[in-house]
């Protein structure tokens, strides 16, 4: 199977590091030179093309068909939903959690202000729990919000929880468990067999989802 007709958009940061490791583990040549600022690597017979972009742009690039597939965290997909893409595999790396945290291990009492960069995830969560909140959108340094009195609680992403601890914050509950997801353009998933081939190549054997994954086109259709 040749990959000359497939492109994957990959989110910068932890997702890209994990993808490189998975990519090399599967025997695919990794085209990205870490010292270079190049963001686009054309597909070749032995590997798909790679397009490096900001995480929140990945669903847009895949949905519009600029890339056939994308690798991005579930947290991003939940925060920026896009009906034009399909989630086709849990790649089982870049594990992290979106959590509610505060200075005390106590569920908010009464209407509460929440500082977060995950406005949609946070609002949906508190809607489900029928708890009135005021969402304060911040794009970074969320841990400071309770310390400086901006908001008593934050909804943020954590990996080990060290940053929270350093700011004397306590995880109250996990809202979402996230990991790297392979997403596909709906049209390409159903019309280009190479796209399913990439999923099969990249799937992580340790992932319980992938051991039973059963979707996708079968055989050549073109």
């Amino acid at each position, binding site marked *: 199977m040749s990959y000359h007709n497939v492109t994957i958009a990959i989110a910068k940061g932890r997702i890209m590091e994990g993808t490189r490791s998975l990519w090399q583990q599967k025997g695919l040549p990794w085209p990205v030179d870490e010292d270079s600022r190049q963001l686009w690597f054309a597909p070749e017979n032995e590997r798909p093309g790679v397009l490096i972009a900001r995480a929140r742009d990945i669903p847009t690039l895949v949905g519009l068909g600029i890339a056939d597939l994308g690798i991005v965290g579930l947290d991003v997909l939940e925060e920026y939903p896009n009906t*034009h893409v399909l989630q086709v595999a849990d790649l089982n790396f870049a594990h992290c959690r979106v959590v509610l945290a505060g200075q005390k291990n106590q569920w908010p009492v009464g209407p509460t202000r929440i500082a977060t960069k995950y406005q949609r995830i946070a609002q949906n969560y508190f809607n489900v729990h029928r708890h009135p909140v005021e969402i304060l959108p911040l794009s970074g340094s969320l841990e400071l919000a309770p310390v400086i009195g901006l908001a008593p609680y934050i909804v943020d992403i954590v990996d080990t929880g060290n940053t929270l601890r350093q700011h004397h914050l306590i995880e109250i509950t996990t809202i979402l468990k996230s990991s790297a997801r392979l997403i596909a353009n*709906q049209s390409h998933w*159903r019309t280009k067999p190479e796209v399913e081939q990439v999923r099969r190549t990249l799937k992580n054997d340790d992932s319980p989802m992938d051991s039973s994954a059963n*979707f996708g086109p079968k055989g050549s259709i073109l």
Partner: protein
Amino acid sequence: MDEWLNQNHREYELMMMVINQFLEQGFYPVPTAPAQAGHYREDHTQSILELLSSFPESHIQFPLQVFSLGPVYDPGYGRWAETIDVEILGSGGSRHDLLALELIMRLVATWPNLASHTLMVMGHVGLLNQVLVTESVPEITINQILAYLRAGNLVAAESLMTHLSQASRQLLLSEPFGDFLENLRKSLPQADFEHLSQLEQIVHQHVETRWDLSLTGNWSYYTDLVFSLYLKDVGQPVLNGGRFALDIHGRSWQGIGFTLYLDPLYQAVRQEMGSLMP
């Protein structure tokens, strides 16, 4: 600037050409508003039915063939898409499925190259539901599976179906009709195979088809046949549609409809337009 103006002119011509086809085939235009009560229109069907629901039931003769023209808002990209939405309303059921597909295929046949550049994927929410019931999946889980599939989350949907038989799971693959039928006979021998063959026949003589029960359409009102006509290698659908049932202000509506996306259609047929315009 001339190039830009000419392109706009040709896109407008294309829209008029398509509208004329629908008018000639007895469809009535229904003017719907692109925004209402602070909400942008994301779908014509609901707007059309809200307007029609303002007439007494006794004033409406079924089947009623209507279409609505104009942009729909796509919140995924925060942009508007020019569309024509076509509906065949009434209780014609499977007979209307055939009518809708014939209408689409007549449109596809207008541009000879369009057929070779497109691929029709057909799904069936009703069949998927029956397969899951036959496999003893609880109703609450079936609803979750359908919600996940509508949201495009195949990973979550799959996690709820790991105990299904191999034949049933195969139905969620994109397959040619022959392979799909073979698995369907194993999972659901009581299905209406004659009707499915008629649907396949209408489409397959014009465009390549695949069947895939993981295709459920994005709207929760789809009840049975759903379909998407995709442009190969472009990554955009030319049209999406399906059979639906919808309650509007206490009145039940059923029918089959589809949304035609004019920008991808123009991209696909612009080379051919010059020779085929009157």
